[in-house]
Each structure stands twice: as C-alpha cells, then as structure tokens.
C-alpha cells in the first residue's frame, strides 16, 4: 500500500449475467480526504460501492485496507463494518420509532443489559462533538431528514469507521441542510476519516471534495485532483464525449408564443388537503412551464392537486374549455393528464414487476379491466419505448428493480408516454440521474412540446428549468408568489422572487 492511503482497490472485476459491471477498476482513498466517485448511470458506481460494502462479492481483484496485512476479503456488510467501512445511504436505514440514542447504539451492545443513562450520555457527547443539534432522547422520526442522515453518519463514525461512504446523501436535502452536512463532513475529514462521496450534483463535488474518480461503462477513466479538472472536462469525461450536446440545448431557444387560445388545462382556486394555498394555473398547447421554489415550498403539492393525487378540496378545472372533475388519478388519466412522481421508488415503480408490465401499466388501466393486452402486444409496446428512450435492460422481462435509477426513470417516462397524454407533468424527472440522461430528458421534453404536448416541469436545478421552460411559477411557503416569463427568466430574478421580501421583482 502507498503511504497515507486508507483503502486501495486493485483490478476489481464484477459481472452479472449479460453485463460486465466492473472491469479492472482501481480506486484509492487517502486519509482525511473527501473523494467523489462520479459516473453516469450504469457506470459502475453503485456496483463498486456494493463490492466495497459486501453486498456483492467481487469476481476478481484485491482490496487493501490500512491496518490489515494483505488483501482483505469482504463477503458481507458485517465484514465490511468490521474492517472499518461504513455506509450511509440516500434512504435512511434507521428505525424511525426509536430514540436518537437508541439508533446510534442499536445492535452494538455487549451483553444483554442496557444502561440507558450511559447510553444517552455517550450519545449526547458524540452528537455535541460533531455539532449535531439534537437531543439523544428525541424520537428519530421527529427529526428532519437531514438530521436523520447526520445521525446515521454519527452512528457510523462512532463505530470507528475509517472509511465512510455517502451514497447520494444530499438528494433530499435543501441548501441549508446540505451546508450543515458539509460542515460535518469537513469535521470528519479533519479527524482523518476518508469519505467516499457519491452524488450527481456537480456544484457539491466542487464545494467539498479533494479528488475525483470517474468511472464509465464499468471502467476506470481516471483519478483527478479537483483543481486540475474543470467542471466542463469532468462532464465530458463522464460522458466520454465533447460537450456539443449540452451546448446544443442551450442555444435551442424556446419558440413557444402564447397565442391566447383556450388553455389545454386551466384551474381556478385549486386547493388540496396538503396545505397549499388555493392557486390559479393554466397551460396551453405546446407550452412547457414549471413550478419552482425551495424544497417544501409546495411545488410538488401543486401538481399533485392538478393530477388528483392528493384529495382536492376546492377549485374548478377546465380542460380545453370544458368543465371536468378530477378527484382521483384515474379521472386525470381519462382526461389525458400524465404524472411522473417525484419519489420514483415510493410512487413510481412497481419493483417486482417486469419492465414490460411497468411500461404498460398506465395504458392498461386506462384501457380497462376487461381488455388486457396480449403478451405480444405488451412486448411490442415495451420494445418500442425501450428503443425510443434507449432504456438499458437485459430484456423486457427483467424486474424493474434490478435496473439502475436512470433507467427506472426512463421506464416510468415510457409508461406515461405510451398513454399519449395531452398534458404531461414531470416532477423532478432528472433527480438522481446522470448528466447524459438529464440532457436526453430535457431534449425529449422540448421535442414533445414542439409536437404539441403541454408539459409542466419541476426540478431542483434552476439551470434545467431555464433551459426547458418558457414560463416559471414561483412558490414560497406553499403559496404561488410570482410568474416569470421572457426576459425575467434568469437565475437572479428567480432567486429574488423565491427570496421575496424587499427585493425588487421585475
């Protein structure tokens, strides 16, 4: 092993039936560094992490860890923990109904007895030393997601891990929460912990990381010092091509003009049980608009009200000028509305079912209970959209849960495109997705709009909204506070509108 390195992977191979997930991958983590692991979906990031944490067993290659002579075998998550590798996943894997202290110490007691007072005291000290402002006796569920994540990290740190893996920890956090998380990461770094940081947010990589390792198609592209790799080059290394594509989409200015005709969808004083203030909204044929605002500002709740996903309490809705009643998702579907939900895993996929069944689900429901599609037709539908959206799957019968996140998202998108909606709602369609797929989806949105589909697009990334939307509706504290069109569509105006207060809004 090299001087100062904590963890070295050499020549790792891992393949699944039909896929070579990792080929000859090297990775080095040094003491006290934050190391970003970057790559597109299917580049092998998740597989590498799973090899490291013992979820998968590598086919070939060696793992060296500081303090252990020779190559280390990691065959299970327990073994990974024993050699000092801890992981905090995007989804919180703690017990929400236990207290913070219990969560930190669960499964680690020696002997049967529990000394509650010592446990709470120790937990308190640990939390204080890491600057996490939470009481050890508080129930975990009452903490925010960000705090829960930090508690998971605290637990990992306390188990004397030297290697901490953070897998997409920031995707459900807002900016101030991310800042807190980064402060914690820097603290750990100062203590000599090596952190592997997996994320899709480029900004965050450049804010907090020291080194970047890029993977592509299961192979190592290279390891870089952060200073020596400008953002644009990172993206091109991840994609394996120059950035014409990205430039393309920026130059392709939106050509939508508001002709003042009858809106495809129009709502007045729409309100749901999820605590949003009644709002007015309309969208015309071929228009792309978007809801923007901070996390929790009510943008998702608005589109859920439009789709009838939450219980609608008031408001009138017109489609193509005609009054319609949308109280449940099926009503919306019948009226030609499609909705791609924010939380793919919870609301989007039907995990155990095949890609084929996931693609045809919505159209099948729309067609009716007594009119199932033949198997041949289902396969034809699925294959058409697998090709159209370039979904990477072994076959149409592969369970969707074994696909990578981006490909799952494409399957859900395929499901809704198959219903040929008039009005498509996309809530965070690009979250947790690599840059290449993001661009694909943005291009697709613009293409569909040019063909006459109306689309509402929600994203946490303002760039993306600016690239696709011709009108932005700004939300603050569960209330629609502004509408931006034309020249107003700039980062600054959006920020100012979101911030509100004394700022002069155009």
């Amino acid at each position, binding site marked *: 092993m090299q001087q100062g390195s904590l963890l070295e992977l050499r020549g790792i191979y891992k393949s699944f039936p*039909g896929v070579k997930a990792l080929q000859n991958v090297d990775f080095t983590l040094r003491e006290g560094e934050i190391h970003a692991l970057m790559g597109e979906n299917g580049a092998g990031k998740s597989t590498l992490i799973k090899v490291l944490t013992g979820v998968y067993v590598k086919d070939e290659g060696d793992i060296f860890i500081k303090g252990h002579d020779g190559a280390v075998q990691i065959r299970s998550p327990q073994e990974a923990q024993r050699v000092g590798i801890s992981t905090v996943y995007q989804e919180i894997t703690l017990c929400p109904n236990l207290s913070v202290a219990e969560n930190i110490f669960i499964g680690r007691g020696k002997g049967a007895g529990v000394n509650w007072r010592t446990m709470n005291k120790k937990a308190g000290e640990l939390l204080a030393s890491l600057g996490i402002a939470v009481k050890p006796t508080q129930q975990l569920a009452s903490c925010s997601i960000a705090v829960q994540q930090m508690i998971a990290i605290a637990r990992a740190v306390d188990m004397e891990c030297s290697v901490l893996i953070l897998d997409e920890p920031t995707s459900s956090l807002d900016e101030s929460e991310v800042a807190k998380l980064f402060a914690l990461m820097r603290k750990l770094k100062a203590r000599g912990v090596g952190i592997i940081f997996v994320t899709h947010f480029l900004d965050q990589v450049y804010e907090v990381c020291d080194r970047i390792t890029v993977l592509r198609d299961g192979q190592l592209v290279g390891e870089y010092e952060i200073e020596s790799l400008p953002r644009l080059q990172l993206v091109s290394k991840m994609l394996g091509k120059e950035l014409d594509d990205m430039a393309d989409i920026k130059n392709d200015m939106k050509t939508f003009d508001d002709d003042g005709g009858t809106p495809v969808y129009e709502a007045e004083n729409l309100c749901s049980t999820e605590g949003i203030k009644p709002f007015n909204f309309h969208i015309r044929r071929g228009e792309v608009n978007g809801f923007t605002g901070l996390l929790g500002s009510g943008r998702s709740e608005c589109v859920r009200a439009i*789709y009838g996903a939450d219980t609608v309490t008031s408001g009138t809705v017109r489609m193509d000028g005609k009054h319609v009643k949308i109280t449940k998702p099926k009503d919306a579907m019948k009226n030609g509305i499609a909705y791609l*939900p924010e939380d793919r895993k919870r*609301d*989007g996929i039907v995990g*155990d079912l095949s890609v084929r069944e996931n693609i045809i689900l919505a159209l099948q429901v729309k067609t009716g209970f007594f009119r*199932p599609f033949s198997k041949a037709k289902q396969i034809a539908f699925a294959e058409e959209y697998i090709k159209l959206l370039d979904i990477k799957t072994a076959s149409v019968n592969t369970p969707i849960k074994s696909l990578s996140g981006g490909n799952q998202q494409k399957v859900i998108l395929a*499901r809704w495109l198959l219903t040929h909606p008039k009005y498509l709602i996309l809530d965070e369609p690009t979250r947790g997705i690599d840059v290449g797929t993001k661009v694909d989806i943005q291009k697709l949105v613009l293409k569909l709009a040019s063909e006459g589909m109306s689309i509402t697009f929600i994203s946490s990334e303002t760039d993306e909204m600016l690239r696709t939307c011709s009108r932005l509706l700004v939300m603050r504290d569960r209330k629609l506070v502004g509408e931006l069109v034309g020249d107003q569509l700039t980062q600054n105006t959006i920020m100012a509108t979101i911030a509100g207060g004394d700022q002069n809004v155009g």
Partner: protein
Amino acid sequence: MSGKLDPKGGGSVFSRVLRNQIFIPFAALLLLALFNLIADPSFFAINLKMNSAGSYILSGNLISIIDNGSELAILAIGMTLVTASSKGQDISVGAAIAISGSVLLRVLCGNDTRPETIQAPIIVAFLVSAVAAMCFGAFNGVLVAYFRIQPMVATLILFTAGRSIAAWINNNELPIVPGEEFTYFGGYIPGCPLPTPFLIAILCFVLTWAMLKFTNIGLYSQSVGINEKTSRLNGLNPELIKLTTYIILGLCVAVTGLIKVSRLSTINYSVIAKDIEMDAILAVALGGNSLSGGKFNMAASILGAYVIQFLTTTLYKFDVQATALPAYKAVVVIVLVVMSAPVVREKISRLTKKIRSPKRTAENQA
C-alpha cells in the same frame, strides 16, 4: 413461455427450468413419486372397479389424491390472489366453509332436519351459499382494504366466530340431505369414472385461467401488493382490488363447501374443513409464492395443493397413525418450504454456477 431460445435470458435450458417458479412444487412432486416408486410401485396402481351404485369408477392412490386434493387446490386459487393483493392470508376459510356448507344444508333441507325430499333445487341452494360465502369474504375484505387491519387479525374474527355462526344457522341441528343426487358432487356421477371433485376443480382451473387471461386481475392484484401508492397514481383503486380478491376467495370457499358437504350429505360444524386454511396457505408457499404479497404463479400454487395431498396420502399408505400425521407432515413441509425460499434458491443457483464455471475456464484454456 415461448419455446424460442432467448439469447439474453442466459444460461442453458436446464438452468432456466431451475429458475422457473413452478420447478419447486414440481420437484417436490417428483421426489415424492420417486420415493413411492422405490418403496412400493403398487402405490401407482389404478383399477377400474364397480362401486355400490353399480357404475364403474377408477380407484387407487393417485385417484384419491386428485379427489381429496381438489378442495385444497380450489382454495389455493383464492388464497393466492388474496396473498398477492393484501400481503396477508385469510385464516377464516375453514370456518367460512362451515358457514357456506350450513347455508347449503339449510336451503336444501328447509326447517325439517330429516326431509323426505330436497326442498330446493341444488343449484339454487349452491347459489345462496355462494352469495353468503362471498358476503363473508367481502366482510373480511372490507376490514382489510378499507379499515386497513392486518389480514390475519381481520380474518381472526371469522376464524373464531365462523363455526358458531354455522351451527346457529341450522339451530345446532345436523340436517341430512336426502337423495342420491346431492352425493354426486363429492362422489361420482353415474357413468363417469373420475371423481366429481376433480372435475369441479378442473372447471375452476379453466375459469381461473380465463379470468387471468381475459381480465387484468393478475396485473392489478400484483401491482397493488407490490406498491400500493404507485398503483393508485396509475389509476387503480387498491381497496376495491383487495376487496375483489377476498370476494373471489369467498366463491372458492362456497365451491369447497359444496364438495365437503356432499361427501357426507351432512355437516359436522367443528370438524368440517378443519385446519384447511393452514394447508391452503402452505400450498401458496409451496408454489414458491411470497407470503408477503406481490408476484404470484397460480399454476405453482395449485400444484402445491396437490403436493400436500400427495404427501398426506403417502403417509397414510405407510401406516402413519392419524394422530402422528401432522408431525411427519411438518418435517417434510419444513424441507420443502426451506427449499423454495428465495434465499436458498439463490444459493443453489450460485452453487451450480460455481461448479460449472471452473469447467468452462478449463475448456477455454484447452
């Protein structure tokens, strides 16, 4: 399954067979058959003989298996759907069979417990009992779907009360159905050498096949069982789908009740279809279906039901005492269920891969 070779499916024909869910109950059946073949080949003998009614019927262990296993197989159909959609099982089917059987007797016999002739056409009596059984199924379904009570807890109510309700329907009397005709359903139709329960079961399988083929109940119930939130957002009504599966199970219960009561022409409230719920759940598990809901394979469940009956008959054949039967059964069941557990199956498939892969590399080098 199409006969075409799928290049992306991977593996040989053998490994694809191994991965198929129906392989588990099928392998169990083969093992049991093999065991019997070695121990006593006469187990498989089928004779044509004359019964007391004067018509030729088939007899033998295999016939007794398809005869007695039919009730379980019919129940397994409903249980599979209920398991898939509601992620739990209905433990009240035994008690519900008592109720539906009791209703059947009540309609057939009227107020008199020893009538000279039947008081209503059998078809009418069956329909009334079917409606009753479906109502009780709906009761369970409403508790599970709309009140969101765990299936086992919700159905515990009828499990406890069902047999009392059954006794109450006939004022705790034990009516006897007069006439030959009614015994056909649990026995033999004159001129037909096959037991009627098996014929009824075949009819049920065909109807089930048609239901799965011509409606979306399969896709919907699996989808609801796997992810209720997603299902709702895709326009499904999860509550209604769960309720439907419980009502279908109610219909299966009514058919089973008809066969059970017909076998004796009367009923014993505390014994009829006793512990059948556990066997029905076991059939679903033996079919390799997850008891926590989601994906299912109907054919595997049905085969699982017959495997259980095969096992029971085998044990009887070896003169295992009736009281000791459950203990022997338990041992075999443990082995079968462990073998069909996904964890074990994955391990086995990994093991076979390991055994074969060194060979392959050796071939490559040579």
